């Protein structure tokens, strides 16, 4: 990932957990003699083996509590070319800021009609869309009175391991963004602002759900030419 301004460093002192987990040695660049590195060759996923789940707003036969949202956008490489048939995994807290996860001890209610896992694939234009509810903010122990901004976790697979991306989508106008060491770890304000979705009235469905647009760009296009699946 070199000195790419779009990416955070491993070592970010304000994010305490990086202190004992960030490597100290220089990363090894792939030697040119590898020619085709494994890391550029896959993996690829197909909906047949990894069933899509594009509506997180209903679970166990009922509608989740919270503000229903539609999240949609386009997945491209750095040259603006659409990434087709790419798998996107989604996970998030419920509207109260609680994960349906055994390790989450936040004193906020679980919702029997919200689990918080989704999976979608991009279409021929690189477009994706899913329905969910707006996740709540939640506390964490990084520093006194620390709260994570509202966010949705996204995991993306491009053409190869070298394009692998796990990120978080944030919401516009959130006052917690200016206080969040994970968001602020991306030093360039323009780069981190691209992690904030845009409210989109055109995507909003009348009397049903608010629309947020979130376009995603995967790096490493030169190393990993994209193939049509």
């Amino acid at each position, binding site marked *: 990932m070199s000195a790419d301004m779009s990416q955070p460093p491993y070592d970010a002192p304000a994010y305490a*957990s990086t202190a004992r987990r960030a490597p100290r040695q220089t990363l090894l660049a792939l030697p040119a*003699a590898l020619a085709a590195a*494994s890391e550029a060759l896959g993996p690829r996923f197909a909906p047949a083996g990894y069933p899509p789940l594009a509506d997180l707003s209903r679970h166990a036969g009922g509608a989740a509590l919270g503000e229903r949202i539609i999240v949609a956008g386009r997945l491209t490489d750095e040259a603006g070319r659409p990434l087709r048939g790419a798998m996107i995994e989604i996970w998030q807290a419920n509207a109260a800021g609680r994960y349906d996860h055994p390790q989450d001890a936040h004193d906020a209610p679980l919702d029997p009609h919200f689990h918080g896992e989704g999976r979608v694939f991009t279409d021929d234009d690189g477009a994706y869309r899913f329905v969910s509810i707006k996740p709540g903010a939640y506390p964490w122990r990084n520093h006194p009175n620390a709260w994570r901004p509202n966010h949705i976790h996204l995991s993306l697979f491009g053409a190869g391991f070298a394009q692998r991306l796990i990120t978080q989508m944030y919401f516009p106008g959130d006052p917690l963004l200016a206080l969040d060491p994970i968001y602020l770890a991306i030093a360039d304000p323009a780069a981190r602002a691209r992690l904030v979705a845009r409210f989109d009235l055109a995507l909003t469905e009348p009397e049903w759900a608010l629309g947020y647009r979130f376009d995603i760009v995967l790096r490493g296009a030169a190393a990993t030419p994209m193939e049509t699946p």
Partner: protein
Amino acid sequence: MLATGSQTIGPYWHLILHPEWADLTRFGAVGERIGLTIGLRDGDGAPVGDAAVELWQATPPADARFPGFGRASADAEGRCRFTTIKPGPLPAAGNAWQAPHCALAIFARGLLKPLFTRVYFADEALNAEDPLLGAIADPARRASLIAKAAGPTDWAIDIVLQGANETVFLEL
């Protein structure tokens, strides 16, 4: 266009954990079946008990019976285990070969972006001519990428995120 920034997988990523993905032979793959145990430790030597480890191998070629990809969750001791087919060699530039290996990506709370590395196997003669292993001057650091036999069909490797025995991580 500017690439989208990476953010940590955090502590609650297990919502996307499907434990069966750690067995790459579950669709009936043909070949030499092996177990690969990976132990993860941080700069204090403490187990990285909440990590996600992803494995990808380009050989044997992925097909309906072999996904080539797996994901496993580290346990409280920082250990995770894959069952897979032992990879074969992969062409390198010219007439050279890359020794059999698996690519790994490690995600965890406290990692704002993945750590990429590779696992090679101690019994492979091609290790001596692998271009990536050959690019690591220090023999001790080179050894950090080589799994040791832990049984007739079992392999084990320790990955150290930080410190004196730090694993070689790749810039991708």
